[in-house]
């Protein structure tokens, strides 16, 4: 009887897992191992032989400032992510109070994260073009002398991209926080009110501790997001004028310059950084479970 049951179980497990695992290992796991293998070669993606070069790709990337300085651009997206958190949190708390037109504002704030990166990029390419809508807005409020080539001038282009990133992604953080704020127990507010807490004290002592976990998770997601930004600069500037990001550089090295070996070691490096961040994330989860 028992063996009959386990036999059936095994059949089921095999039957249900075969196709999914085949797909997972072919298109998920195999590429990761391929990346690791390529990263020790000078392969160009075409030739049948891969020449092993040891760690020289890694040494090249980690010692040549050309490859590393693009990490500074990640810093801009990281700061953009931080601003995004502040804006999203502000509105999540604000919309948890009595507000007229709450649903309208909620919908407005979330809507941009449903638009494709392509549409967003093209929309802002038009918006920030010389003589475009943004320039005419500046003209209208008397700041004509401040107009410049927003998507070309190396001094401002990264900030423009950072702004577009905030425009697009704040809705996602907002809806996360909004849900979390709703989950803060009502008694905590009442208690704070009895104690005569001010609005700011309520935010600091009741709401922020109540949504701590969501904040931390979101913070890590944004860090990973900042490291893996590449769609916006790819479509808007193609990485020119100092807008290169590490991921975009990796893709260009592989698919344009055909230096798969070098690109693979970049991919491994950025993956390791993300792995480290994820490990911290898991530690936070564990800390929460222990509480």
């Amino acid at each position: 009887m028992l063996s009959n049951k386990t036999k059936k179980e095994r059949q089921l497990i095999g039957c249900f897992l075969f196709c999914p695992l085949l797909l997972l290992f072919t298109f998920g796991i195999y590429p990761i191992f391929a990346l690791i293998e390529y990263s020790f070669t000078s392969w160009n993606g075409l030739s049948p032989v891969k020449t092993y070069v040891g760690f020289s790709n890694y040494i090249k990337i980690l010692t040549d400032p050309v490859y590393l300085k693009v990490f500074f651009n990640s810093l801009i997206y990281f700061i953009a992510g931080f601003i995004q958190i502040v804006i999203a949190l502000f509105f999540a708390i604000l919309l948890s109070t009595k507000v007229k037109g709450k649903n309208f504002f909620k919908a407005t704030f979330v809507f941009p994260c449903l638009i494709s990166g392509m549409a967003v990029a093209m929309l802002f390419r038009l918006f920030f073009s010389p003589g475009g809508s943004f320039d005419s807005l500046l003209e209208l409020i008397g700041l004509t002398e401040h107009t410049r080539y927003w998507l070309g001038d190396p001094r401002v282009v990264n900030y423009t991209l950072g702004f577009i990133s905030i425009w697009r992604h704040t809705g996602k953080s907002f809806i996360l926080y909004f849900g979390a704020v709703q989950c803060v127990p009502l008694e905590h507010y009442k208690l704070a009110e009895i104690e005569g807490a001010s609005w700011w004290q309520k935010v600091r002592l009741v709401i922020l501790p109540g949504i701590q976990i969501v904040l931390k998770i979101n913070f890590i997601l944004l860090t990973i997001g900042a490291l893996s930004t590449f769609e916006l600069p790819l479509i808007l500037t193609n990485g020119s004028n100092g807008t290169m990001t590490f991921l975009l550089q990796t893709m260009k090295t592989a698919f344009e310059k055909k230096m798969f070996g070098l690109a693979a070691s970049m991919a491994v490096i950025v993956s390791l950084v993300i792995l480290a961040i994820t490990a911290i994330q898991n530690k936070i989860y564990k800390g929460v479970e222990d509480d």
Partner: protein
Amino acid sequence: MIKKVMISLLKYGSLLLWSFIIFFPLITLFFGSFKTYDEFVNTAGMVPTENFLNFDNYIRAFNEGKMLMGFTNTFILLLFGVGGSIIIGSMVAYIINRFDFKFKKTILFAYLLVSIVPLEISQVGTFKLMHKLGLYNTLLAPIVIYIGADVLMVYIYLQALDKIPKEMDKAAILEGASYYKIYSRVIFPLLKPATATVALLKMIAIYNDFYIPYLYMPGEKMNTVSTTIYRFVGPNQTDWHVISAAILISMIPMLILFFMLQKYIYQGITAGSIR
């Protein structure tokens, strides 16, 4: 009293300011999509068009941009990408959550590993494989990536299964149901909310994806909605009034989805972020 007025002024002021920041670029795009070439060049973006019934740009964008083909290809990707994700995600989660077997830990680790490496970056390793398997420049290339290498759905289903009591399964077994029946008649129907989340998140992700189709489907007849616009902009740099219409056309399906399923989308985004 004055303090109260100040506070609500600040409150609504900030809400309206952010709404303005979000809407302003979209509104100028909307105005622009109805303008003629001369009107577009000679008027500021924020000036409304004289003729809101001028649909010429939309017709041109739809025809010259071959957007129907883009929509067809995207629809096929959605059909198989979303459907495949639901089937695979629920099956894998059912097995992992309900049974104990030898390589369970290894499999969970494999899923974790795949979810850590950004999908775009692992394409450096996938690219040659697609060529070897003959999937390059076919619709199958994005589909297998959406269901094989994007593993979000497994996590969403695992979370949902955790909340379905195991007594359900036991009761069904006592009534003589096979495991397959339990999955299809008991578990899968109970997973409906998770299925809705997976379907929505995958729909948004696949519809909006640009890089994977761009990388694997360069063929003229293989454009999706996103790559259609990218390739349409190339040779038509000066016709921004037509491009505006094309961008707006591409946004329509997501707009409809959003207005129909707003509540579920809010829940879905939350579920998709916290694993």
